């Protein structure tokens, strides 16, 4: 299977690899997947409390090239977004942007889950009620 140029680019030059202080009040962490399934993503967001937007995002991923590219792309998209906009990121947007083949769609689903988990963690920490995003 050949990878798309965009997957290769994110794989070779992953954006925003790293770690944020998970104990910090304005950091939300999402850890999804399982080693047995061959994919684990940890995605973190740092929220600017004054504006309610995502100031920074970091990830680390155990997985195939598409999983790494999906999470790398997600961190790029998250920066500067409001929490509600971030929660609106759909896995199919990632599939489209990276031209993922059908067998790799689960990688994008995992990235969407990681985004939602990070937002939910941040909101829980700060006592903000979940807003429903359709």
């Amino acid at each position: 299977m050949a990878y798309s140029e965009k997957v290769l680019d994110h794989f070779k030059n992953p954006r925003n690899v790293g770690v944020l202080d998970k104990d910090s009040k304005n950091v939300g962490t999402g850890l999804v997947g399982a080693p047995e399934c061959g994919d684990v993503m940890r995605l973190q967001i740092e929220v600017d409390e004054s504006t309610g937007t995502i100031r920074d995002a970091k990830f680390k991923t155990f997985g195939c090239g598409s999983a790494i590219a999906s999470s790398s792309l997600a961190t790029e998209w998250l920066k500067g977004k409001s929490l509600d906009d971030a929660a609106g990121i759909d896995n199919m947007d990632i599939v489209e942007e990276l031209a993922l083949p059908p067998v790799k769609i689960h990688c994008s689903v995992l990235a969407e889950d990681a985004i939602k988990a990070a937002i939910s963690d941040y909101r829980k920490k700060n006592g903000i009620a979940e807003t429903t995003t359709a």
Partner: protein
Amino acid sequence: MNKHRLIYLDNNATTPCDPRVVEAMVPYFFEKHGNAASRSHQFGWEAEDAVDYAREQIAQLLDVDDKEVIFTSGATESNNLAIKGVFEMYARKGNHIITVETEHKAVLDTCKHLEKAGAEITYLKVQEDGLVSLTDLEAAIKPNTILVSIMWANNETGVIQPMREIATICEKHGVLFHSDATQAVGKIKTHPREVGIHLMSFSAHKMYGPKGVGGLYVSRKNPRVKVTAQIDGGGHERGMRSGTLNVPGIVGFGKAAEIARKEMDQDAERLSKLRDRLQAELTKLEETKVNGNEGSRMPHVTNISFKHVEGEGLMMTFNQNIAVSSGSACTSASLEPSYVLVGMGLGDDLAHSSIRFSLGRFTTEEDVEDAIKLVSTGVNHMRDLSPIWEMYKDGVDLSKIEWAAH
């Protein structure tokens, strides 16, 4: 990653066709294009002579009678013919077949197919080192057992099963013994008659011959084994496999067998040194595990798990430079990791983290040195990206985390 030379370390998938083999084949496409079954003219006789000669070359490699070699389209067909053919031919004797969980799909899926046709199949488990337990094997034999099918060497790990001991057990109980020897023939000594194997499958393209041609050894004396044909037609190959013979392919197969007979010992000695060097250097990385019994293994294969790194991702770091295979699910259409490694008791996580390196006749010392550097760099890079490697380094007990399986 500066070189654009592609290093091929996937010889268990297929081997390059030896140029000497290609040279032998060429005349049989045009000048000597005859059908080996045409008995009435020079073209046919010439083709028939070429096939006879190749059959003899293969018989010499296997130390069997040339009449015991049946040509097929490859080892998958040979396995189908051996197992289905015995099941049908010996139906009156019984319907029970014993095989092993870590066999190739060509054996396992054939057995599954036969289950629908009324066969009773026992799938033996293997031990952690990949070897089948002889006690388990003997205990599984019943009065209605007609066949034991156990591979000579495993494609993913290179683990060599105890062929003589298995043959002794089969002999003692009067059960036929078939072996899928695809990964072993032409690389190590494989003499079925001497060992006590009654049917043996093998393939040209795993031993520097062409794709699309294989063989099945069928014992003709002590015992005389018969199989029911699975492809009906003109009655070629003593009625066991109809269809016009692939003359150029068979000529190449014969040549490959001749070269293997002369060179396999020196190839094996050279490759085992290179393999040992590769394995020794790669297992200097932290948290690695060699999969399969190292004392009973093909000389050119090593299968290594690099913990907390996913195999396909790892391969992507160096696949512009090195060709290998992974036990990771992501390389195949299914999302399940290698059933061979899982069958050996490896957790799914370690199976996802495994890479198979299979060297071959054309692998050089330089290839191995470059592979050591590229793979080591790749593993370190992927670990820098891996959240579970970070957790492991921070002393987090990964088994205590509640992972959300997906």
